[in-house]
């Protein structure tokens, strides 16, 4: 299957979905007015990936900001990942002292049945 590589913009994140490496990476800002448009292809990609996943998958979510319109799409994306029956971890990055972003990760962790790793970094 084809990889997804999208450059970030002021309102949408950088995306790297690389099936051969089992790497799914979303970085930057996700604050578009209409998030469904942006996330639909990503969710579709995961649906196909879940049918033939790598032995282990790493999902890196490294967001500086995301809006509530994106939050539902990100949840849908995580729900598609739940279908992967091989080793998978969601690495949730947050900036030092950004308790709100840590809490946002914990909100997802409470809903999604995949192990989360909370990773504090100096800057996103």
């Amino acid at each position, binding site marked *: 299957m084809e990889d997804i590589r999208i450059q970030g913009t002021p309102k949408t994140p950088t995306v790297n979905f690389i099936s051969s490496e089992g790497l799914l990476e979303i970085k930057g800002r996700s604050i578009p007015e209409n998030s469904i448009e942006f996330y639909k292809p990503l969710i579709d990609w995961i649906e196909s990936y879940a049918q033939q996943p790598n032995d282990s998958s790493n999902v890196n979510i490294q967001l500086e900001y995301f809006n509530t319109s994106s939050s539902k799409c990100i949840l849908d994306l995580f729900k598609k990942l739940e279908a992967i029956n091989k080793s998978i971890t969601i690495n949730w990055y947050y900036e030092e002292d950004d308790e709100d972003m840590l809490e946002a990760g914990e*909100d997802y962790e409470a*809903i999604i049945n995949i192990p989360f790793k909370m990773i504090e970094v100096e800057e996103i």
Partner: protein
Amino acid sequence: MKGEFDIFDIYHGLERNNVMLLFKGELTPDLINSILHIVEEKMNRSDTNLKIRKKVFNILVECLQNLYHHNQIKSSDIDANSDFPAGMVMVAEDDDGYSIMTGNFIASEVVSSLQKKLEEINDLDREGLKALYSKILDNGEMTKKGGGSLGLIEIARKSGEKLEFGFAPLNNMNNFFSLNVKVNH
């Protein structure tokens, strides 16, 4: 030249109240980018800490998107020359922190449900807001315009203060809805 509408007075009023940004008009996605950029740059130059800057930015994103999606006016009895539906947004700083204020037009029939939502949100504490957020996130219906009241709940969570709001009837079909969100240091 001194009329009843003096731009210099307005300027001083804005300066006195430490207004960082004031916008009135119809929002577009590009304008939203510009407004966010201006406020972010100004905050970066101030000594406000990252946590507060992020809260203000997040709240401003939700407020602007509420204005973008929900500003509407029922037109039959409005002067065709007016520039409705013009929304307003203002960001000001004072000794306590920041205020993000918005004003927009809404149809009279949605006033009572919006008021009820806002009162419900104001009745909840931190944990209550977190629980409601997760519940709507997990079960709520999402539309192109957003996720029901998820935006308002998020605004209240990030603010940590009660939301101040008001409705001013414009005529029997339309109301002006104002919202004031505070982020204290």
